[in-house]
């Protein structure tokens, strides 16, 4: 028989607490399901998301400015929606939770089900993710403009709970957007040789930074989804008069 790897008495390994395997898929289905229902309600039943200097992210850019009055949110939300639907992290989340492909690692799947991965319609269209990234970058510019405007009240600069929420939201959305795998590829990941490119140090350090953010991409995906939700809900409650904005100064 072989020698034991450890001759001395090592400390007993502390048992790591693990959630039951179904907690993660059940949580994902609940959160994504509720967010989808909320988004449908918000976009299909409201014609404005504006409360004084606050504009809900669902309604930005404000297409009413160019004369579109019919369900203005619909003209906006398709871009972030498709960006998220084709995001590598959300793909993992919904393949696992909604399609049980696989529900959890090394768990048996329903036998006899045809599986084609991302090679056939509709999932093969996820390859278009980069194009939704480009559109989302444009939307981000509007959201930053809105966030700055949220600090400008009729009597000048001020800070309300809404201003802070909108700022936090746009920061989280930016980190989520710029930690995207397609951006990581675009910024330098597609190169085989950083040193052979123009600006090797810059390309390498940009790629390194995006890679670091990318490691937590799932966290940014959830946090930014909840911040959009919270910001919109807060503004909706202001519009409907349920809440009054708290001005900090």
């Amino acid at each position: 028989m072989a020698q034991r790897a450890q001759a001395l008495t090592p400390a007993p390994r502390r048992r790591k607490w693990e959630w039951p395997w179904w907690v993660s898929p059940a949580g994902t289905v609940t959160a994504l399901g509720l967010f989808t229902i909320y988004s449908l309600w918000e976009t299909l039943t409201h014609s404005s998301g504006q409360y004084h200097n606050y504009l809900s992210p669902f309604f930005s850019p404000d297409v009413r400015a160019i004369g579109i009055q019919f369900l203005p949110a619909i003209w906006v939300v398709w871009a972030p929606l498709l960006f998220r639907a084709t995001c590598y992290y959300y793909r993992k989340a919904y393949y696992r939770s909604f399609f049980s492909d696989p529900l959890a690692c090394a768990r048996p799947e329903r036998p006899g089900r045809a599986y084609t991965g991302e090679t056939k319609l509709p999932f093969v269209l996820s390859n278009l993710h980069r194009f939704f990234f480009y559109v989302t970058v444009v939307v981000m510019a509007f959201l930053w403009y809105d966030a700055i405007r949220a600090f400008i009240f009729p009597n000048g600069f001020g800070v309300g709970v809404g201003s802070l929420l909108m700022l936090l939201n746009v920061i989280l959305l930016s980190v989520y957007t710029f930690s995207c795998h397609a951006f990581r590829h675009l910024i330098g990941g597609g190169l085989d040789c950083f040193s052979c490119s123009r600006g090797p140090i810059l390309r390498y350090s940009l790629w390194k930074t995006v890679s670091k953010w990318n490691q937590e991409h799932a966290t940014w995906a959830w946090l930014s989804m909840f911040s959009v939700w919270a910001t919109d809900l807060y503004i909706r409650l202001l519009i409907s008069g349920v809440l009054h904005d708290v001005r900090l100064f």
Partner: protein
Amino acid sequence: MAEMKTLHVFRGDQSGGEEVAYEIPVEAGMVVLDAVHQIQATQAPDLAVRWNCKAARCGSCSAEVNGKPSLMCKTRVDAIEGEIHVRPMKAFPLIRDLVTDVSWNYEKAKQIEPFAPKEPAPFTMYQRDVERSQQFRKCIECFLCQDVCHVLREHSAKEQYFGPRFMIKIAELEMHPMDGADRLHFTSHQAGVGMCNITKCCQEVCPEHIHLTDDAIIPLKERVADREWDPIRALFHKTAAR
């Protein structure tokens, strides 16, 4: 007296088999492979198990411990609550007991175009250009990632997909600054990167903590998308290649 633990070890071959329970005394620092050796030495000398280094270096002792693809020599007995079930890898044909036939992997490896240097060695390379490939070279070929990958394990799509281990092999070569070959068409078609749905189980089980999905498979999917889904980039690539 030493604490006793029950190990349920799969015994059998292609024609069938079942788990057999063995009681063993637990020793300090014992790993599952020690426990299996203990059984082999005292209760079942014909128990088949493949192993070599007992140091998580050779990649031979891959099995499924309580349903999780693991290296037996890296899985501590005292880290497992309750009974321990040890089974062979599910994705590969069983030879006997805990030993499976992993030769399919070597067949796939042969089909990948090897390193094709752009110029004769020695070359000057910078750390920043080789660090991505270096991560993938940590692979010890334990094939746990292949075992857990549901494309191979549950859908038996071995004809359509080479599996995560070979995605990192291709990525290692494709991202090499001095490699001149182009494997992207191969990656998308014969090797079948599109079959992976990036659900990251391979990354979760890798004993070398290689970021298979994030650092190899997704970047490969992006490179394939450059070529097959992005007319602007594909055009640029063609012009640049001239």
